[in-house]
């Protein structure tokens, strides 16, 4: 064992390299493989055609989430192609012996919500999924990243992945966040500073006192959006908050204290060197709102829509102008003056119980503006039941929100939950790409509290001045 100080990434990486055959990329062992209906059918079909089996069905977990209705689950799925994809996942899991949290299963939900919730996600693990927001699981001190369908097939067959070691990027956040400023605002702010490709080729480790103060679910929000800065993975070293979160969960290690003793050795050694370090101040962050068509096109709630013609970089100038055109906005417009048609609270970024609590506390005692159609889509069946036990569903329903079943829903609009052309949406999801929530739809990314406030007032509103009832 080398005595060179190692980062969290180094330690997980070193522990998982199976071999590096001469002239080949290293084979990295995969501890947990999460599977959903959209990026897996072709992979299972590949196995079948080659006569291969799933090497570790016990380390593979599946759930339908992207393409499912969030309305009454007792009704048949209306779209025959969606139904076929969901049936295909069910049949594949049956054929290959993979545990499926199916529609109707009490633990079904967005794959990145149920992984941590069930304790499937654990510190020090390598975790992959055919989905770019797999970075979420890094919040628990795992190395977790999204892969393509060919790689899904490779992992199913070999339980390994061909990977070159990524570079490491430390994002240190000093200080703390002001009241009303959330993990979502922090990560949007960081993406705005880094750009959508600032993290390309890197794994981000979020460090510093501001990060350490974040709760487990807030950490998931931060790591979730690492890919929006181009980083395939984001991670946070495990600590007591992580261990307290995992203790007692269904798939947590049986000998938990011994596991904790192992996990306590994961954080980076003093003097471990990152390939790159960037330092930010938590106190600089205000509630964020995206104005454009990528998550780095973001400003504070107290700002105005920027004028892209003033941008120095020609690419940014061109893409900013194109974005304003698509978004139907003009430079100089105050963010708080932007009116909204829709509000979506949900997605693997912001659909956990703390997100719903934050949104409900804003909404309590208010009504959704008559011009706004608002919906809440819990991240999992468990989150939904917990919220209902706490009466949050009534707060939302009484205010005029729709209260839905768990799934990805309008984050990507693969199911019937979509924007119509020109509709403007305050969304707690992770991508504001053109057409992401529906062709011609205009997405503004915000925190759950900011989305809730916008639903009530009908336009963006600075949550720092909200009158809670």
């Amino acid at each position: 064992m080398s005595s060179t100080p190692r980062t969290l990434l180094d330690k997980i990486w070193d522990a998982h390299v199976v071999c590096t055959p001469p002239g080949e990329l290293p084979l990295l062992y995969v501890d947990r493989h999460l599977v959903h209906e959209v990026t897996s059918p072709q992979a299972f079909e590949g196995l079948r055609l080659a006569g291969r089996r799933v090497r570790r069905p016990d380390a593979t977990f599946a759930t339908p989430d992207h393409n499912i209705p969030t309305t009454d689950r007792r009704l048949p799925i209306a779209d025959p192609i969606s139904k076929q994809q969901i049936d295909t996942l069910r049949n594949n899991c049956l054929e290959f012996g993979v545990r499926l949290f199916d529609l109707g299963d009490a633990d079904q939900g967005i794959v990145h919500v149920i992984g941590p919730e069930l304790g499937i996600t654990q510190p020090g693990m390598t975790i992959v999924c055919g989905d770019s927001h797999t970075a979420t699981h890094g919040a628990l001190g795992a190395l977790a990243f999204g892969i393509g369908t060919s790689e899904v097939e490779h992992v199913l067959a070999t339980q390994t992945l061909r990977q070159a070691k990524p570079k490491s990027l430390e994002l240190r956040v000093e200080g703390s966040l002001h009241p009303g400023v959330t993990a979502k605002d922090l990560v949007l702010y960081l993406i705005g500073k880094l750009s959508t490709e600032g993290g390309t080729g890197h794994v981000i480790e979020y460090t510093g006192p501001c990060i350490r103060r974040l709760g487990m679910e807030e950490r998931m929000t931060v790591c979730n959006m690492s890919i929006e800065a181009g980083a395939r993975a984001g991670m946070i070293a495990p600590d007591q908050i992580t261990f307290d979160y995992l203790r007692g969960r269904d798939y947590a290690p049986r000998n938990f204290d011994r596991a904790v003793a192992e996990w306590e050795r994961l954080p980076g050694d003093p003097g471990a060197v990152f390939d790159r370090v960037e330092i930010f101040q938590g106190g600089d962050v205000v509630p964020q709102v995206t104005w454009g068509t990528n998550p780095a096109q973001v400003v504070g709630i107290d700002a105005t829509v920027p004028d892209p013609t003033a941008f120095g970089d020609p690419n940014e100038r061109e893409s900013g102008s194109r974005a304003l055109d698509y978004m139907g906005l003009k430079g100089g417009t105050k963010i708080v003056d932007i009116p909204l048609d829709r509000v979506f609270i949900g997605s693997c970024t912001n659909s956990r119980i703390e997100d719903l609590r934050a949104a409900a506390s804003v909404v309590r005692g208010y009504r959704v503006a008559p011009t706004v159609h608002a919906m809440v889509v819990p991240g999992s069946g468990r989150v939904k039941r917990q919220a209902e036990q706490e009466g949050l569903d009534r707060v939302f329903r009484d205010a005029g929100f729709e209260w839905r079943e768990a799934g990805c829903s309008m984050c990507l609009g693969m199911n019937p939950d979509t924007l119509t052309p020109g509709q403007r949406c305050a969304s707690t999801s992770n991508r504001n790409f053109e057409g992401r929530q529906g062709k011609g739809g205009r997405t503004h990314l915000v925190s759950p509290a900011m989305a809730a406030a916008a639903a009530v007032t009908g336009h963006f509103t600075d949550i720092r001045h909200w009158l809670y009832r």
Partner: protein
Amino acid sequence: MQSFVTHTGIVASLDRANVDTDQIIPKQFLKRIERTGFGQFLFFDWRFLPDGAPNPDFELNRPIVAGASVLLARRNFGCGSSREHAPWALADYGFKVVIAPTFADIFFNNCFQNGMVPIRLPEADVEELFRRTRAAEAAGGPYRLHVDLPSCNVSDDAGFSRSFTVDPFRKRCLLEGLDDIGLSLQHVDKIAAWEAAHAALAGE
């Protein structure tokens, strides 16, 4: 996997940065359970007008780039979702090569799995290729590039010649059209040994 050795083809330029995979293949087309047939949906929301007719303003719809197999784009091509449907759509449409200053990581990896070569060139070289494409088209003909994978070189008939880098393993897989799962399964004894060592550690 389909092999790639050399290729000569018409260049289609897409003068945009941050082209995300949601644009390359919109989500409404991800419900299919096959790997094939995605080319018809490539850049769907840009390529077609609301009534379904081709959008005459979209770069790929210009007659001069009909049959293009080399796509030229700006920074951070393929950002966003991990959907391999994006390279499937590009390959099925006929693209063999994508050239950009930078690519998103997952998209970049996914290309190699589909016999397609993503080529990173310095921004100034990409700018030069945009200039040469415009000049050739202004002169009435499409612009063509040659890609030679064994020597990792991209060139035209008018003096442009640049080398690019490809990971040696990815290069070998492309040249030989290797099944990388089959290749990895050659190391199954090492995988099993890793599992045995870690099961012992975990006391399972």
